């Protein structure tokens, strides 16, 4: 059986000034999942990078709007029945309402042997998270990015 618990639902204006508060809310929510500090630091960083991409690229200079951040904590006893470790997942869903359509190409990491500023956000997201998916947003424009961390 899989138990799904929504541990955070928070909508905020997509701007850099909001990010300190968003990280604080996220840390508080993740406190319910009893994870090591290094794991919490990494997922907070990756979600922050995803928000930054939305602010800079989805909304950009010419558009304004909100980001909806939803976090689910899923635990399943299926693995435990087989004698293996109980599978647990943190799922982060980021919805924006921007006119710009984000494509999968924009979520790719750049080669790290190019030492230059910028373009590291997607690499961080892909390194920290186990699954990264752009989903269709039903009804109206915008994008949905789903990040999964297996624990």
């Amino acid at each position: 059986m899989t138990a799904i618990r929504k541990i955070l639902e928070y909508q905020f204006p997509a701007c850099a000034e909001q990010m300190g508060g968003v990280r604080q809310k996220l840390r508080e929510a993740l406190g319910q999942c009893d994870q090591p500090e290094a794991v919490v630091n990494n997922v907070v960083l990756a979600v922050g990078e995803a928000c930054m991409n939305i602010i800079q690229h989805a909304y950009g200079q010419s558009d304004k709007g909100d980001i909806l951040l939803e976090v689910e904590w899923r635990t399943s006893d299926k693995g435990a029945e087989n004698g293996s470790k109980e599978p647990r997942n943190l799922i982060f869903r980021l919805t924006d309402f921007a006119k710009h359509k984000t494509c999968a190409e924009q979520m790719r990491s750049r080669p790290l042997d190019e030492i230059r500023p910028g373009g590291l956000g997607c690499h961080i997201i892909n390194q920290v998270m186990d699954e990264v998916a752009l989903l269709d947003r039903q009804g109206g424009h915008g994008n949905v990015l789903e990040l999964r961390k297996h624990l």
Partner: protein
Amino acid sequence: MECNVKSEFGYDLLELGGEVDLQYSPQLREKILNSLKTGNPLLIDMAKVSYIDSSGIASLVEGFQTAKTSKLQYGLLNISNTAMQVLTLTRLDKIFNLYTSTAEFRQKLQ
């Protein structure tokens, strides 16, 4: 974010602290580039950095490149655990010159 530049003997020391994110990284970039414009080597103390994201890292990389072009010594000092996690994730821990004491950096200047 706290970001103060102090002139030491023969180099500048930038003391960086708090959360370095998209809101503050332009200020960090400006401080780094302004310091390097004086022609002094630059050491950035990161002991009190509690959070740094890719925009903050981008400012550090731009400083690294500017220093390299200007043939100036540039290094990071006492990197906090959280900042080191980000440098490791981006494999920049192998690129930057990392120091654990100002004496070590001063030795490099001789």
